């Protein structure tokens, strides 16, 4: 599935995708942390019909319901087979210093030994991201490593 990312200068970002049933959906992520979900229906494909508005907390809840944990779960299944190895999702808060900076700047693997094996961004999953991959607010990093390693990554991303 292709998710189209459109920059809204001064306002935030818009993600657009078409569902299998042919419905086009847009999600406006505002800088203020609010989200707006619109549908493109009917004749004018340029005009979004507002469906609902979510504040930061509501959006978080919806995201939890919809996706991020399930992807992390799949990795958890994988790591269960190797003793001592675990996996956990680490969310990049909007206030994190690494927002809009490359993953490589965190030097997470060098400092903690844990690896970021995927980035969940909205509906997209970036598998095995390179050091040049730029992190965005609300990304969820899927981290694989030892317990201590994962906690280290959490600390790095947080402050």
């Amino acid at each position, binding site marked *: 599935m292709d998710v189209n990312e459109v920059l809204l200068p*001064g306002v935030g970002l818009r993600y657009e995708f078409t569902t299998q049933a042919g419905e086009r959906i847009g999600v406006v992520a505002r800088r203020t942390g609010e989200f707006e979900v619109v549908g493109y229906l009917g004749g004018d*494909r340029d*005009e979004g019909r507002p469906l609902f508005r979510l504040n930061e907390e509501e959006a978080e809840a919806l995201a939890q319901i919809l996706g991020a944990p399930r992807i992390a779960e799949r990795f958890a299944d994988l790591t269960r087979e190797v003793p001592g190895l675990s996996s956990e999702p680490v969310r990049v808060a909007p206030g994190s210093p690494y927002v809009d900076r490359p993953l490589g700047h965190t030097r997470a693997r060098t400092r903690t030994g844990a690896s970021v094996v995927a980035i969940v961004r909205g509906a997209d999953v970036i598998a095995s991201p390179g050091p040049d991959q730029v992190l965005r607010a609300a990304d969820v990093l899927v981290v694989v490593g030892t317990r201590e390693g994962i906690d280290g990554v959490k600390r790095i991303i947080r402050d």
Partner: protein
Amino acid sequence: MHVSIALLLELGLILAVLSVVGSLARRVALSPVPLYLLAGLALGQGGVLPVPAAEQFVQAGASIGIVLLLLALGLEFSIAEFTTSMRHHLPSAGVDLLVNAVPGVVAGWLLGLDGVGVLALAGATYISSSGIIARLLGDLRRLGNRETPSVLSVLVLEDFLMAAYLPVLAVLASGGTWWQATTGALVAVGAVLAAFAASSRWGHHIGRLVEHPDNEQLMLRMLGLTMVVAALAELVRASAAVGAFLVGLALTGQTAERARAVIAPLRDLFAAVFFVAIGLSVAPAALVPVLPAALALAVATGLTKMFTGRYAASRDGVGRRGRLRAGAALIARGEFSLVIVGLAGTQLPVLAPLVTAYVFVLAVSGPLITRLTGTRPAQRPSDQLQGT
């Protein structure tokens, strides 16, 4: 400490009036800016309510208002957004500049303004109000529309051009030569680029200068740094506004986000004071003779903005109605047209009343036209059911 009863009373009354007109404007989903201007006109000498004691405070507050408006603009700015806008909409920005500044030049020439006046008027007709428009698109829930990125890109590029334009204007208005003005502009553009480079490379270190977990500390540091840089910029005649803009640009990431939140109420207060000051500086009697010119200019530059918006949206492959919506959205002029008047000097004849009337017309009609243009035709209820 001596308390001036007259000052407190007059300020209180002014703020009360602003709050009433502001909430009225919001109720009908309009920008309060034109009503603040009107309030300024109604107050003061020759108006309904003279406020001699508060005038001094309003004048001082107005310059702080300009500084905070530009600081907030700089804080909003992100390099990624700017480069993306440049890539897609550089031709739109060219069209925008050409078709919207030229009517200002022509009008200024016809009205017999001097060089500074013509330049100021061109700027005032060129710059759309990013404040009014971004808020309007959110309120009308058009952020999901395909034409919206085109509109916002044009606004970002306009705002950026202000960084080069304002110092030129400031130098010329203070009696400098064209040569000094060009130097001033070059210094300002160089400083903007340096601020960009610094913020992308060492943004966190610059942030550390003002960063503090306590909001009060953050505010004091932000304001202190901004005012000092603004004063230094004014000293080298590059305009305090540009100095403040630079401080905003140099701060990025979390610091910028928190700074925006902390500055917002102060900016709202002092920007309102600034709009009132512009209204105060215009004698209601001076407004009448410039009304026809202001109206004609408003109609002409309303149409040219329509054209700009349609062109920008067509570059993004937007359909006919979306192009109309984009054009209508760009019509509103507001805070920066007034900042330009503030810099060019409110004492210039004709210019201040002309731009005040002009902004008033377009800040009211722009959002109204936007609201009515290119919306979905009225639907039958059955469509609605099927649609969702």
